[in-house]
């Protein structure tokens, strides 16, 4: 690997973009939009370069940069990516331009809006590349700030409440996580994920914590569990896992749709990323101890969110719940992977499948959910903000292309084979079923309910009689079609040739599944 600090540069590009966008703020909105989009596309290009230069078969992290930072805390500026990080970078880089394209309705303080978006992207990049807790946590928390303002300043009528809920809720999770990490730091003097993971896998982490911290009121197991619970809460809120999800529907609904795209497409992955990068390698034992309740949580996340989505009438709210549902599968698979230790070849194969499935599902959900919200943005733009399920009908007559393309995205979300959603779900179920049979079997219900409400959307919005009000709705413009083509195309490509992604992440997935064997 060359010594060029690719990742730092990649993280700095959106920040520079934000500054430039603010600087040209006085210019026309179009210029601002194009500038911001340009920077996000530069970031995308850089990410593709990283993708191109990535060695899928190599162990460990690539493009690493390491500089001493706060020596007192033993904290380093340590960044690097493996397959997972790379995939998440790519997802963030894809989702951000989508979010920008879907932000056409933003008319006030345009330059600030786009600057915040770029800033959010930088935080995402930072989060997905950091390998040291402090550095990672700073980006993790910093991401909240642009997100908060994006929701608060450009959101819907209840945005104040939504932004506050979002901020406070995630903050609470972050704080518990921070405390847990401080506990770990006090015991290990390290903030490095790799080190901590290594200690956990060799079984030294928890005894050290118990020895150094010595909370005499608690047994060692309980101490470990409390620390685990703190970290778990932080991530569970972010993903979210039922019952820590209540901030999400309101936030996704009230946020401007462009922001929602970033929130669901990339930010929700931060939680899962945390599950994979931190919880699984460091707290595998604790997860095993409480596996049954965790599995119930996962099943509840999948099934209840699907049912709740069915009962919604606001399209954005529906997709918000649907997001919870889709990420629930990832949660299920992660818990399933945590179930068994050991090196049994049959089990390992299932774990690999589940892990690969999680990676794919994360990416696919990001892509599909972002696209769906994009469609909503386009619909809102045409309908003047109306997006109720029952406000429409028969739109297929006036917007056939829109219907067709959104139909593809909807079916991708439903998990139709041939589109990107399927393989991830297949691998997740394939891997989880032998590991946690009943939870997986129950989760299948989520697939059915998802189908019900997605077909419900199609039926109520696009089928049936066309109300007079919408008789003049214009179909997609040429520009919109052209910008949609790559995304929809990617759905097909991933659905038909998942090896494109799997080839890159498979090795990382294996490594992650293998680290668990040592517990």
């Amino acid at each position, binding site marked *: 690997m060359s010594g060029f600090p690719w990742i730092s540069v990649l993280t700095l590009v959106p920040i520079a973009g934000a500054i430039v966008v603010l600087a040209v703020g006085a210019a026309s909105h179009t210029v601002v939009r194009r500038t911001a989009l340009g920077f996000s596309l530069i970031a995308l290009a850089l990410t593709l370069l990283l993708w191109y230069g990535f060695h899928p078969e190599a162990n460990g992290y690539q493009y690493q940069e390491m500089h001493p930072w706060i020596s007192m805390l033993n904290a380093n500026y340590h960044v690097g990516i493996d397959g997972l990080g790379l995939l998440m970078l790519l997802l963030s880089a894809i989702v951000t331009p989508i979010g920008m394209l879907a932000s056409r309705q933003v008319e006030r303080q345009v330059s600030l809006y786009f600057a915040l978006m770029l800033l959010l992207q930088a935080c995402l990049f930072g989060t997905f590349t950091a390998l040291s807790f402090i550095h990672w946590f700073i980006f993790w928390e910093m991401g909240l700030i642009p997100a908060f303002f994006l929701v608060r300043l450009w959101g819907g009528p209840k945005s104040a409440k939504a932004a506050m809920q979002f901020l406070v*809720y995630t903050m609470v999770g972050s704080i518990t996580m921070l405390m847990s990490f401080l506990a770990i730091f006090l015991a290990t003097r390290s903030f490095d994920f790799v080190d901590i993971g290594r200690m956990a896998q060799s079984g030294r982490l928890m005894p050290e914590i118990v020895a150094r911290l010595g909370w005499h009121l608690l047994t060692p197991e309980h101490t470990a569990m409390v620390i685990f619970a703190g970290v778990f809460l932080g991530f569970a809120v972010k993903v979210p896992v*039922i*019952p820590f*999800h*209540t901030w999400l529907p309101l936030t996704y609904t009230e946020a401007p749709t462009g922001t929602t795209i970033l929130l669901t497409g990339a930010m929700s992955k931060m939680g899962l990323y945390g599950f994979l990068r931190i919880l699984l390698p460091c707290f595998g034992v604790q997860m095993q101890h409480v596996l049954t309740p965790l599995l119930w949580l996962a099943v509840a996340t999948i*099934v*209840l*969110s699907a*049912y*709740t989505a*069915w*009962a*919604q009438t606001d399209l954005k709210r529906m997709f918000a719940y649907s997001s919870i549902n889709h990420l629930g599968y990832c949660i299920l698979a992660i818990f399933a992977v945590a179930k068994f230790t050991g090196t049994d070849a049959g089990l390992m*194969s*299932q*774990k*690999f*499948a589940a*892990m*690969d*499935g999680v990676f794919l599902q994360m990416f696919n959900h990001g892509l599909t959910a972002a696209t769906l919200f994009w469609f909503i943005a386009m619909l809102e733009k045409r309908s003047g903000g109306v997006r109720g399920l029952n406000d429409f009908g*028969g739109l*297929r*007559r006036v917007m*056939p292309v829109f219907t*067709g393309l959104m139909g593809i995205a909807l079916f991708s979300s439903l998990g*139709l*084979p*041939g589109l990107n959603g*399927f*393989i991830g779900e*297949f*691998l997740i*179920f*394939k891997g989880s*079923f*032998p590991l946690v049979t009943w939870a*997986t079997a129950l989760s*299948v*219900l989520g*697939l*059915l*309910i998802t*189908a019900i409400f997605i*077909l*419900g959307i*199609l*039926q109520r919005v*696009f*089928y*049936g*009689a*066309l109300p007079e009000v919408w008789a003049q709705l214009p179909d997609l413009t040429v520009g919109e079609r052209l910008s949609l083509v790559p995304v929809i195309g990617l759905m097909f490509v991933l659905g038909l040739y*998942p*090896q494109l992604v*799997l*080839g890159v992440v*498979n090795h990382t*997935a*294996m490594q992650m599944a293998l680290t668990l064997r040592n517990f």
Partner: protein
Amino acid sequence: MNWIVRNLWLIPMLPMVAAGIIAVTKRKGRMLAASLAIGSMSLSFLLSVWAFAHVVLLRNQGQIDLQVWNFRWFQFGNEWVSLGWILNPLTAVMVVMVTFVGLLIFIYSIGYMAHDENFTRFFGFLALFAAAMLGLIVANSLLLLFMCWEIVGLTSYLLIGFWYSNPRAAAASKKAFLTTRIGDLPFFLGIVWLYSKSGTLLFYNGGTGCLEPMSLEHLVAQRTTIGMCVATGIALLIFCGAVGKSGQFPLHVWLPDAMEGPTPVSALIHAATMVAAGVFLVARVYPLMSAHALVHGAVSTSAALQVVTWVGSITALFGALIAVAQYDIKRILAYSTISQLGYMMMGLGVGGVSVGMFHLITHAFFKSLLFLGAGSVIHGCSGEQDIRRMGGLGKLMPFTFATYAVGMLALCGFPLFFSGFWSKDEILHAAHVWDLSQIPFYMGAFAALLTAFYMARQMYYVFAGSTRLEVGEAHGDGANATAGMEHEHGPVPHESPAVMTVPLMTLAGCTLLLGFLGTPAWPWFQSFLEDTRLRVDFGAFAREGMFPVMISSSLIVFLGLGLGWWFYGREPVDAADAPDHLGRRVPAIFAVLGHAFYMDALYDKTFVRANIAFSRISTWLDRWVWNGAVQIVRYGTLAFAHMDSFIDNHVVNGAFDEGCEGVSRSGQILAKLQTGRVQSYLKVIGVALIVFTALLLWRANA
């Protein structure tokens, strides 16, 4: 490896490419769309015939006739997921049938859909359907099969809801997709289970495939927690998928509603091919279905096949019963399809692959013939679908009538010259010699009686007597499709154009001829599928009670037809609103049958309502419990914050203020004390001395 085996993927790929091109064609490109679809289908048909010939050739040379071509698709962990295609007699028969029937229906659709504004889209969907269906057939991987299976479901959804403005079509399409998906989910679990147990989803892969003896032995040897053999468990889960797709008993409710789609769709998807995919699936995984018996060499049928048999026979009877009391021409055929699919399942269960598949093939021809005939009738009657408003069409639509009669007799199983007779008879015979129970046989026989009866009823209603069509009134769901036709043809019932009648006649011809491929005397079809020696043997009629079964089933057919004549032929139906002749006799039963045993209402009241209730509950949970917990925490925090702020304002701040004031006041006081007079200070010192000394002494005393 032969070229055709390696390039078997071309058969589904050609329609797929056509569908892709049509998808980006403008609405006006009607001819382009139709010709692309039909052209690709013709090429696929030719390739299918080539493949078929190849298999026949191999068979005749006595070579191994199972050829596969596998390739790697994607990787997880150290493993690769492989897909592939397979060429064996089962595939060959199915591809030929699907491409041939499909081609005819494509051609027919040009006429039927001529006036539809979404003509282009229609052919796009049809081509996509054909691609997926053919992919399903050639798939050598359960995963690939499932993927195509789902896409078939999607196209079915799209085509049922083709007239999307009609809310009933929209609802029916949704119902179809969801009902089949209910079956698909256990199927999906079955696949996942099978994958985890056998390590591969390839059917055949040179000894390591999941349907090959090594894997099967492995599956049979293992037991689930409830004592069932793993192979049985997987087989039953997979069968759930077939139940959904093939409209078997508990999940049949979507098929009648699917008739909201255009009639060619009903003919192609909901009669000939897609619904038969479930039967095909069972046939494809037949080694797994019969694994228990296969491995143990037991005479008895495996548990999975028993389930298949019972579900099939129940469905056969059930569908036939309901069909008796329907008025919609397409719904009668839909229930008939359900019933016949039940027959096929029963055939698979009691007789094996060839028995069920033979009926599948013959049924595909005569049922698509019937549907196309019904479509022709509907087309001729400007969208009317209620048989009570038809009548006397025999004279007005002679070609349609003749071909319809052929299809009807084949469906009834009229002896000797109609394919349905041979295939159905074989099922009945197999059921008769089934060693577990005779009940399926009697159920099948009774269903055969009912079949003859309801088809006779339909014939009399539609073609006999005088026309009862109300001029200028377009009822039913074909209205949309045929809305434009009235201007050209006028309201009078009329014969359909040649583009529609020619496929009808072709199908009728096939219907007549096909039966002779599988007579007991010369069971070519059976031997082809099951790899047995083929010879002409008229003695077969005499074996194992074959002859009595033939005679009795013929008698049953005559009885059914006779009953139909007794009720509906003797005194022709004269008025559109006259009560049904049978319904007059047994109104209660007729009402129950007319409402299809109230299954839809039952499901509405139970499953649908339970699910809706659960969705309400989960919303309620979301709003009150989860959110409530958060709100409690929030209000708790708020209360704490308020308390804190109260304390701050009134206690801490108050104390501080008080303190400040006190300090300042005491300062004032002290300032007063601070007289600057030495003596007053000294006084204070004196007082302090007194106090402290007193205190010390008092403490010392105490």
